[in-house]
């Protein structure tokens, strides 16, 4: 028993040390910084909460934080709403022997770098981009659409596309785990297919759904590449401001405080979401 424990600890220690160095240490540093202050290049290490006061009271930061949450929520809703039908289709309507092929195809976008995919959307959505020239060519529109690039819509579209496979996979796995006889039992007990979906399929896929939501929501709120490249001035998010504080304004403590506030918001919203779904997340079987 003791031996087992020791061997177990030995086995997990390399990844544990790695995680500690690469995750916990930087987090601790960020936390520490957020309680200091900086004047040009000198760091003043006296404890202060003024960064937090500024982070939550300055209307600019507050607006950015709210926008980030709003965009992340929009991206999450759009992504999961698109991913669910795809996962459902593959799980329920694709012949079992072809399912792996479909899942394989779904992951193809991962073969290209994230940056390239963002640029791709820039090319598609741009003023002279693929979408506009096609629509112009077809005579659907008379002048190029401008609401699709360099704003929040573009950020949502790009991020939703980037995260779709991440959302499809956990939902697919949850749907695959549903015993098909449960669906027949529901119909046998008098429910239509649609009602069966609402009363059986949907609640049983909640674990996958929650996983998908968290997988999309948590990283998107801190994304800064996409807003930077396709967001325009009105599409910037909190991460862009954090970067600016650290690298341009030489105010690492304020940047750190903003980061902590953003992380705290994500944590609170995620926990709230999990709590709301607690009933359908409980252990099964």
């Amino acid at each position, binding site marked *: 028993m003791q031996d087992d424990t020791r061997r177990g600890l030995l086995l997990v220690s390399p990844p544990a040390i790695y995680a500690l160095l690469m995750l916990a240490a930087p987090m601790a540093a960020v936390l520490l910084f957020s309680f200091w202050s900086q004047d040009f290049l000198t760091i003043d290490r006296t404890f202060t909460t003024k960064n937090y006061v500024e982070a939550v009271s300055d209307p600019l930061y507050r607006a950015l934080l709210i926008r980030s949450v709003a965009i992340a929520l929009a991206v999450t809703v759009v992504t999961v709403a698109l991913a669910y039908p795809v996962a459902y289709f593959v799980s329920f309507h694709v012949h079992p022997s072809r399912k792996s092929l479909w899942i394989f195809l779904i992951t193809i976008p991962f073969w290209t770098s994230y940056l390239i995919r963002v640029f791709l959307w820039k090319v598609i959505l741009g003023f002279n981009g693929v979408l506009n020239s096609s629509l112009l060519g077809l005579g659907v529109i008379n002048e190029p659409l401008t609401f699709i690039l360099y704003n929040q819509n573009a950020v949502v579209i790009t991020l939703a596309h980037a995260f779709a496979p991440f959302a499809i996979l956990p939902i697919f796995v949850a749907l695959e785990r549903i*015993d098909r006889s449960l669906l027949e039992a529901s119909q046998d007990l008098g429910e239509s297919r649609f009602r069966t979906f609402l009363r059986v399929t949907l609640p049983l896929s909640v674990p996958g759904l929650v996983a998908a939501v968290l997988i999309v929501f948590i990283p998107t709120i801190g994304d800064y590449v996409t807003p930077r490249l396709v967001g325009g001035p009105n599409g910037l998010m909190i991460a862009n401001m954090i970067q600016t504080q650290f690298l341009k304004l030489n105010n690492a403590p304020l940047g750190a405080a903003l980061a902590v506030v953003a992380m705290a918001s994500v944590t609170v919203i995620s926990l709230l979401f999990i709590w709301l779904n607690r009933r359908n997340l409980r252990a099964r079987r």
Partner: protein
Amino acid sequence: MSGPIISLTGVTKHYGSFQALQPTDLDIQSGEFFSLLGPSGCGKTTLLRTIAGFETPSGGVVRIDGADMAGVPPNRRPTNLVFQSYAIFPHLSVAENVGFGLRRSTQSKAEKAAAVEEALGMVGLEGYGPRPTHAMSGGQRQRVALARALILKPKVLLLDEPLSALDKKLREQMQGELRRLQRQVGITFILVTHDQEEALIMSDRIAVMFEGQIAQLATPEALYRQPDTRQVADFIGVMNFLPAQFVDGSAEIAGLGRVDLPDNEDGSGVVGLRPETLQVLYDGADAPARIAEGDVVEVTYYGDMTYYDVRFDGADKPVTISMKNLAGRAVLERGARARVGWDPRALVVFRD
């Protein structure tokens, strides 16, 4: 209200080129406890699911209570199915499972709760309502599945091997309870099973199926005493088969000698004898109709019974004989000589 509750006419089912159901005609009366019995893969489940509406027949007509069921989905049929895996909803409590089908009923909340409690009482699960289902045992799940179907008062309850996942003791107990429940609620039960004993114990009538076809449909007693084919005889209980030559209204049976069997055309065939229709003769036993002699080649002791395999003089294969173990009666040893009494009236004839 006098016609059969279930009526199948020429029902067939193909899966691609594979024919799972040969043309099947079947009438099941209201209030009957009916069993579909057959080996694995013979099409029992297919037939049951065709009645429930989960499979569309490739041909023929399914009628329930006189109404043609073509195009009627499972949720609009007056049948309920108890699945082999029970199909208990894992995200719902016991009470929510049992009350699942009541959503569209016009009853008030309190009435529904009372109905759920009543259904739980019927299967011996009073007070289990608020429990989550994942903590329930196999037998309890089975009861929940039963209550969930019974609460809707279907005209026909379909059960697909509902007891096969239970251990022997629980299975025997549930067999009794199912029978009692069926009498109590008066609903037609159609039970699928591959366990011939279960079918014999529980059913009013049994349809024995082989390879997508009903081989014989009869009461348990008729099925046991007068099986139509060797295959049926072999499947139900134990049957000894002895080759026989039929000549001039009598039969020459290997090891047993000649017996009068009128109304049989000349030729060769097989006769069958159940183990309990033969008896090992002890000193002082009543003189039976016929006596044959042979060697005991195997003894299987069951406590209440002993099974002897006896090879009659002049026969190739031994026959199995079951004997009650009475007080003071010795169990024969392997290799002993045995005198065996038998009765020609117990013979079942199978012609080639």
